[in-house]
């Protein structure tokens, strides 16, 4: 009996102790890449949370400040990630967030009680022409790339910290896989890297490391070839002098590979040294030798090799990748389709006439005053029905209007484009809209710098497994701004050739979009080309220094007459186009050839969908670097 009482007492004390214990949580965070380095843009966040006590349910809140252009003030923006962790366990969470240069506050909270809090000051790196991510277990060894002619920024990351969304790699131009333990990569990682690669990025796979590296699922997806054991090549003195890479190399250990000749980028006799493959419009290279080989440890050789590979197919980068600076202008230009001023004037005249008619009946014709009641009811009823008849469709569409401004970048010969979409959703009346994005092709960010506070769910992060976001509005009037990043099919191909003073340009439009207008940047001048209809091909021939305008502003068509209704949707569309084109043209394009095209159509509806009835205004601005296609 005494023993039982003692056990009970101890159990009670233990229970009391447990009930008083707070949630002992620890959070390990990496933002951006190794050492929290990042440049402005979408950056990956890796978090590992461990609970040393009871199970925990709450939220991870990532907050930062962004300058809100519309409200002219700094505004706190938040990502919220639902968190659920069993007792005595660890769990990893990943997200991709927008980094604008401001520090991030991270906290774990449940029921408005903060259980863990920290501030992350990222090591802000400038966005250079070429951003390289080295995926390696060592975090060093590629500093020589910074001496490249092309200004290059090098980031390092271990495989476990890699994002599982392609958007997390958005700021990166080239990935180098070097001696990394890849067993931590999931199929989502592989899909993300492939999706990032497809529009035209580059990946270089170093032959360092053991067999586990080349037997990884990612390698097999990138290089469909047979890799056997390693062998040692011996070079004669006369041979090795001929090639910058093999200069002063006597022996080199390489992987034996069996690959088609078309894929060999560099070989020694019958032994492939560098193997090349296309993934969509992206390029992948496999270096069959160990970069850490003692004979190759001269920076000059590696410098030459990477300089060649990276320069093979580099996307010229625009000065600003994000259109953040344009958001205010885009949102301020939401075209409104309501009745015009003229309709109001007609309404006032008709109403006055009806009143004069009523006056005439009652005062002059001495009709019964009951006619007044009847007359007023008729006037109101008829006006309501007439308005309903004329504007019902318009009003219904205004009830759920999505402005979709897409900033599209594409390789001239690729049919896959990277789209940065800015969406303004105007919701009036009853019913919450839902926006759906195909997860495999892109991400919705709810951290729209100008998202309206009327939408209370806008700051909830969309996890990779989510496919749609419901936007709940508490009032009858709400506007949401959000941004999407996705890859979409856009079969518009551009070919260019130069002969003497003439530049020939062929635009093949195999898409459903109509190319309203094309503007060519050629030797510092802007040339206005014509439109290209859907499923048509158009040739343009230009003579150097003829009919070009020194600025795009001069090249744009003018709204000439003062009598033009500047509020009509057509004129507003033109004004919006002008605004965005001028902003895009403000970038420094140097002497390179660029083509700016204005697209019209129904938008990329197969990827970003708006639920329920409503209309969608799409404005597409395609920016294509065509210097790389130039043929003499």
């Amino acid at each position, binding site marked *: 009996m005494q023993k039982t009482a003692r056990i009970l007492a101890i159990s009670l004390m233990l229970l009391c102790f447990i009930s008083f214990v707070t949630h002992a949580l620890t959070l390990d965070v990496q933002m951006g890449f190794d050492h929290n380095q990042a440049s402005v843009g979408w950056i990956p966040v890796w978090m590992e949370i461990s609970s040393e006590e009871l199970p925990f349910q709450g939220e991870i809140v990532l907050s930062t400040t962004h300058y809100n252009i519309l409200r002219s003030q700094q505004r706190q923006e938040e990502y919220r990630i639902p968190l659920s962790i069993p007792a005595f366990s660890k769990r990893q969470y990943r997200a991709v967030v927008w980094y604008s240069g401001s520090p991030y506050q991270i906290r774990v909270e449940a029921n408005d009680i903060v259980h863990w809090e920290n501030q992350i000051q990222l090591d802000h790196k400038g966005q250079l022409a070429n951003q390289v991510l080295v995926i390696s277990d060592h975090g060093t060894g590629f500093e020589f790339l910074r001496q490249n002619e092309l200004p290059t920024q090098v980031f390092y990351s271990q495989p476990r910290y890699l994002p599982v969304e392609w958007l997390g790699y958005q700021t990166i131009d080239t990935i180098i896989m070097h001696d990394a333990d890849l067993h931590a990569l999931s199929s989502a990682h592989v899909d993300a890297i492939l999706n990032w690669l497809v529009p035209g990025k580059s990946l270089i796979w170093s032959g360092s490391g053991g067999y586990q590296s080349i037997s990884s699922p990612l390698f097999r997806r990138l290089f469909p070839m047979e890799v056997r054991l390693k062998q040692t090549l011996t070079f004669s003195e006369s041979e090795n002098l001929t090639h910058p890479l093999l200069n002063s190399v006597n022996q080199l250990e390489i992987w034996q590979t069996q690959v088609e000749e078309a894929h060999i980028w560099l070989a020694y006799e019958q032994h492939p040294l560098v193997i090349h493959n296309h993934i969509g419009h992206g390029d992948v290279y496999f270096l069959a030798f160990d970069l850490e080989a003692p004979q190759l440890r001269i920076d000059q050789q590696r410098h030459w090799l990477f300089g060649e590979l990276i320069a093979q197919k580099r996307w010229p980068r625009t000065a600003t990748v994000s259109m953040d600076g344009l958001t205010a202008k885009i949102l301020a230009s939401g075209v*409104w389709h*309501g009745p015009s001023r003229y309709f109001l004037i007609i*309404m006032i005249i008709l*109403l006055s006439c009806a009143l004069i008619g009523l006056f005439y009946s009652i005062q002059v014709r001495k009709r019964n005053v009951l006619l007044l009641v009847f007359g007023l009811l008729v006037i109101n009823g008829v006006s309501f029905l007439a308005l309903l008849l004329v504007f019902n469709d318009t009003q219904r569409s205004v009830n759920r209007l999505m402005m979709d401004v897409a900033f599209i970048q594409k390789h001239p010969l690729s049919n896959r484009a990277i789209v940065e979409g800015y969406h303004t959703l105007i919701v009036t009346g009853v019913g919450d809209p839902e926006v759906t994005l195909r997860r495999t092709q892109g991400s919705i960010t709810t951290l729209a710098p100008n998202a309206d506070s009327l939408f209370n769910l806008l700051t909830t992060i969309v996890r990779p497994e989510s496919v749609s976001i419901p936007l709940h509005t508490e009032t*009858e009037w709400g506007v949401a701004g959000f941004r999407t990043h996705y890859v979409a099919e856009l079969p518009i191909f551009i070919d260019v050739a130069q002969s003497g003073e003439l530049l020939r340009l062929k635009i093949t439009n195999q898409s459903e979009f109509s190319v309203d207008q094309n503007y060519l940047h050629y030797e510092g001048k802007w040339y206005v080309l014509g439109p290209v209809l859907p499923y048509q091909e158009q040739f343009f021939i230009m003579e150097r220094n003829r009919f070009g305008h020194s600025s795009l502003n001069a090249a744009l068509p003018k709204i000439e007459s003062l009598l033009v209704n500047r509020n009509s949707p057509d004129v507003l569309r033109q004004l919006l186009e002008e605004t965005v084109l001028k902003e895009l043209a403000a970038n420094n394009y140097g002497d390179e050839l660029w083509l700016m095209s204005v697209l019209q159509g129904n938008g990329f509806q197969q990827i970003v969908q708006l639920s329920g009835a409503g209309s969608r205004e799409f404005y597409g601005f395609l920016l294509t670097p065509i210097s790389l296609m130039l043929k003499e």
Partner: protein
Amino acid sequence: MRLVLIERFLIVFVSDLYAHLHSRFFWVWNLLLVGGVGFILLLMWPDGLIRGFERPLVGVGYGYALSSGLILINLHLIEGMFSFADRYSVREWKQYGHFSMSEIVMAKALSIVVLNLVLIMNTIPLGLLVVFVDGLSYTMLGTVIMRVLVIAVTTGWIQLSIGETVGRFAWLVSGIVAVILIGALIITQMTLWILVGISMVLLLDLILDFFGLVFR
């Protein structure tokens, strides 16, 4: 023949109402109100762009223009230009008709309600147009109309009291009241129950003359 209370009430009410409805000046009021509200709407009409995240201000403009117009009309400030020959004042009804103050005041108060209803109903088509440009929702239009009706009726009642008690300088007092009311309407969120309270007190004073009892 001795008239019962309801009959005397109806005589004053119908007479006052007809005096307005059969006067061309009432219709000029109507046209001025429609024109004035329409003009304000024209000035505030959305220029085709969704500015920032804000709802078009035209709905607010409709409410303010209608309220201000009705305040001016009810305070008889526009009336100075016209004359309603068939309309008798409270004093005249009392003197020539031998009706009691309560009958006259109640009948005139109801007449003000009906006249304001007619004035507001004339501008509802403009309000509906505002709904179609998303300046107001249907619910908000209903709320605005009810609010405007209360403001207009209470202003009419205040003017009834001013007209009967102030005398020669009634237009001056009405002008000051108009400035205060429109200012309160635009600058501050005017609380309607205060306005209703004031107008009820003034009406009761007309009937019971308790101000006269207190300040004599």
